[in-house]
């Protein structure tokens, strides 16, 4: 997948009902690599915070000797953050409202994360 295809994939993710934005994040630096999002989503903040959660998740699964995280789903009262590992250090991240089609979003994320490799 080349970078222009990245944007096509991100647009498709953002097209899922209830999705506020999708981005590719460099987990090491917590920075945005590519993004498409609605105006109200602060993608730079999403990148920093998602990368921080991914980093903590990795330390947790490492302590449990359960391997490296490949996906992460944070569900909260008003919305959710989903993240799928691409080729290190990239992660594919999406932020959605609580009424979003999370099941479909999750499958798309999995497919695109795989294609990022």
């Amino acid at each position, binding site marked *: 997948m080349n970078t222009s295809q990245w944007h096509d994939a991100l647009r498709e993710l953002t097209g899922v009902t209830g999705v506020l934005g999708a981005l590719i994040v460099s987990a090491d630096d917590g920075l945005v690599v590519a993004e498409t999002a609605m105006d109200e989503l602060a993608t730079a903040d999403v990148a920093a915070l*998602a990368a921080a959660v991914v980093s903590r998740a990795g330390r947790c699964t490492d302590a449990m000797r359960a391997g490296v995280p490949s996906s992460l789903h944070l569900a909260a009262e008003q919305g959710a953050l989903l993240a799928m590992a691409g080729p290190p250090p990239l992660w594919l991240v999406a932020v959605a409202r609580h009424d979003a089609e999370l099941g479909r979003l999750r499958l798309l994320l999995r497919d695109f994360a795989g294609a990022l490799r």
Partner: protein
Amino acid sequence: MTDVSLPPASAALQGLAFLELGERLRQRGQFAAAASVALAGLGHYPDVADAHDLLARIRTDQGHDAGAIAAWHAALECDPGHVGARKGLAFIAFRARDFTTAERQLELAAMQAPHDASVLAALDRVRSVQPVSAAEDEPRFTDPSGGLLLYDLQGMRLAGGIGESDDAALADAVAAEAAGLSREAARAARLLGLGRIRHLVLETADARVAVMPVAHDAALLLRRGAAIPIGRLLALAGRAAQAADDWLGRMR
């Protein structure tokens, strides 16, 4: 008369050929002969896990479950990662309708052999027949190898363990990291306007982990094998969270 051409007993015991011989006798139903070969072999090779595994399978076929369980535990003492022993113990537990133990043993087997199709199939089989009754299904905090950990947000372990036998130090280390994860996830949800966190699910190649806040400034982490459906994992975690609420309420 046995129609098997038996090499002279001494020769049979030279290498580990007795394992193959014992297995062939077992498969032919000649359990007594198979048992004597296995026992003789164990006399010479007491710390060969496969030898205990062979004896355990023979005992299972003879219907001596207790003997089989003892032999498989002996095999695990020689080799804690012995997948055959885990599968054997799971089989006996399953036959006795002890689905929780069966699932537990197969999960430990899956940890050792994450890509062993027979283990994953057995896991699905055990899970599919298990009645979804709360009591039988309930991961208990009191079971240190139950893969269920309760901790406070400062990272101190309150109860439970993480499924690697009852290694307290490991469980404490996981509690410390899990608290960091819980705090980070809660901060991210708050700062991104997603509201209060409900749960977090992590997937790795070997495991699925649910992290869920619990009242009284605590949280729990539930670890299961990679094959468990997420919905089921969250249902288990939800029930554990209720149990934790009550338990912490009584404690505090």
